[in-house]
């Protein structure tokens, strides 16, 4: 283990993947000389060369589409969408091409493409640079979707995504880039489709994604001080989803709080709620499922407004308290 930032962990995964496999390369806007809009790629262009760290024009649809073509013909491209909001530009190549080609062609070819994109609010970048769009991708058969919440997973999940023969959307979080944590040495993968349970308690189960994982853990610390013990589940991979772990942990405490940054309506946690409500958990839950989500509004610019629309640690604490006390 060594301590590094989430951004460094992503960079480390890219470097390792490129060293291990000459088919791997990265392309995107300002990933080369600039070092990435969030400094993620840093000096990689000097280590890997401009052939493998490719600066593109501002052409998201073209970039992803070229990734699809390269993936179909023997390469292992990683494409970066500078802000996940701009995946809207590339949605045809993501959802209509990358996701469906393996199926449409009857399995004749696969599309081992990784699409990295930072999401999330908290930087004052307003409505077009702050969305959490994981639900769009998770809705599309043929895509895999991961949301690393720790530096170690940022590395391990990205390495696993690059290995995978399918298109994988890796949604990083801007606020996490500068956070650090222990990261396994070498080329250790975090398998896709396996949830993490970074904390176990007895009173309620918090399922959280992305930046809400660390907020939930912080909230759990505070709750522990007043005697409420929370389990925290981080699905890590939204698709394929580790439904078993989520259901088991939900049943174990009987109370479920689902926490996401994304807007409420048809956010990822709607699916988790639906799964629990139609499964075995239905008979075991002591309390109605509670979602704590971003408000159904675009992310505003003003810092006090931006904060107000997305769950914060104190909101998680309050929601957990209510859930445990009232049920």
């Amino acid at each position, binding site marked *: 283990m060594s301590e590094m930032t989430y951004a460094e962990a992503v960079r480390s995964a890219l470097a390792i993947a490129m060293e291990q496999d000459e088919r791997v*390369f990265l392309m995107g806007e300002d990933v080369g000389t600039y070092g990435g809009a969030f400094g993620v790629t840093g000096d990689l262009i000097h280590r890997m060369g401009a*052939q493998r760290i*490719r600066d*593109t*024009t501002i*052409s*998201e*649809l*073209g*970039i*992803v*589409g*070229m*990734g*699809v*073509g*390269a*993936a*179909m*013909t*023997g*390469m292992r*491209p990683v494409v970066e969408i500078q802000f996940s909001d701009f995946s809207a530009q590339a949605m*045809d*190549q993501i959802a*209509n*091409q990358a996701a469906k*080609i*393996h*199926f*449409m*062609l*009857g*399995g*004749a*070819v*696969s*599309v*081992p493409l990784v699409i990295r994109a930072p999401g999330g609010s908290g930087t004052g970048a307003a409505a077009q640079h702050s969305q959490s769009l994981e639900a769009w991708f998770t809705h599309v*058969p*043929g895509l*895999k979707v991961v949301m690393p919440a720790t530096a170690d997973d940022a590395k391990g999940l990205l390495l696993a995504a690059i*290995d*995978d*023969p*399918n298109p994988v959307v890796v949604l990083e979080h801007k606020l996490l880039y500068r956070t650090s944590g222990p990261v396994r040495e070498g080329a250790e993968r975090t398998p896709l489709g396996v949830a993490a349970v970074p904390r176990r308690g007895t009173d309620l189960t918090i399922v959280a994604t992305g930046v809400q994982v660390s907020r939930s853990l912080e909230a759990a610390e505070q709750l522990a001080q007043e005697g409420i013990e929370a389990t925290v589940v981080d699905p890590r991979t939204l698709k394929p989803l580790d439904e078993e772990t989520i259901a088991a942990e939900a049943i174990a405490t009987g109370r479920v709080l689902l926490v996401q940054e994304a807007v409420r309506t048809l956010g990822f946690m709607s699916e988790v709620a639906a799964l629990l409500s139609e499964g075995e958990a239905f008979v075991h839950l002591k309390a109605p499922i509670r979602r704590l989500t971003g408000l159904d509004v675009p992310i505003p610019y003003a810092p006090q407004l931006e904060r107000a629309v997305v769950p914060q640690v104190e909101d998680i604490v309050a929601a957990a308290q209510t859930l445990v006390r009232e049920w």
Partner: protein
Amino acid sequence: MNAPKIAEDAGRARESLRTMWRIRRFEEAVEELYGRGLMHGTMHLSIGQEAVPTAVCQTLRRDDYITSTHRGHGHCIAKGADPESMMAELLAKETGYCRGRGGSMHIADTATGNLGANGIVAGGVPIAAGAALSASMRGTDQVAVCFHGDGALGEGAWHEAVVLAAMWRLPVVFLCEDNHYGMSMSSRRAFGLADLSDRARGYGIPGVSVDGNDLQAVHDAAAEAVGRARAGEGPSLVVATTYRWRGHSKSDKNLYRTREEIEEWRAQDPIVRFERAVLEAGTLTATDLEQIGQEVRSELRTAVQRAHAAPDARPDDLLESVYAEVDA
């Protein structure tokens, strides 16, 4: 060009005719099966445009790539696909190229370098550029030809792919089949250009227009563009002007064009034109031509029969068909 003309070379002339007839007969068979209710979905026929894919694919190696379109039977056949497996696909058979999952709009034959038809106008354009990028990164001298319609020139996908391909000087040829219409929109009206290949000027790449019903002319233009791509000199745009005889698809009532216009173009039949050139050159006889036609006819008849007899696509493993399996 001082190279011998295709029409003057018996082998090449024969091969060209076989391919063009194969495309035409294939599509006529599709039309008939569709009309008799034996085929479902939508079909886009390229009858009248056969010279373009035939000539272009003659300039390509088997390991070169193409991307194709919703009107892609011709590209698929010309690149070397087996009409029987194509027909099986259209007849929703397990033995079809896509196991009945793709149908006409997604037909592909990766073994011959066809990365697939595409239901999305211009959807294949970035994919072709990506294949070209891949070829150049892998250090091969493969080339990618991106077949697309005139209508695709209106799409952002076309633009973005050309921008990137031009910047990186990728080995890709953008092969625009200008059949005068994108569904009902006239390409003259749409793009404000007397010569569509002027579009290339905005990207700093070469552009040329040719008579798309003249096999030789298409061949020469494609050969030059493919040669340039293979030599590392970057992408080009080739516009082949042609005409679609049939409606856009079955729903088409031809309200946007006149019967006379269609008739005028039928008189420009690319197969007849090439046959005439062959006869004039004395390369093959009328009997030879007759025989080629017969051979293709019977080949296609067999293909349809065998495709019909094949087992239907099976719904049992649909859920397992979505993702490629992860290696253990």
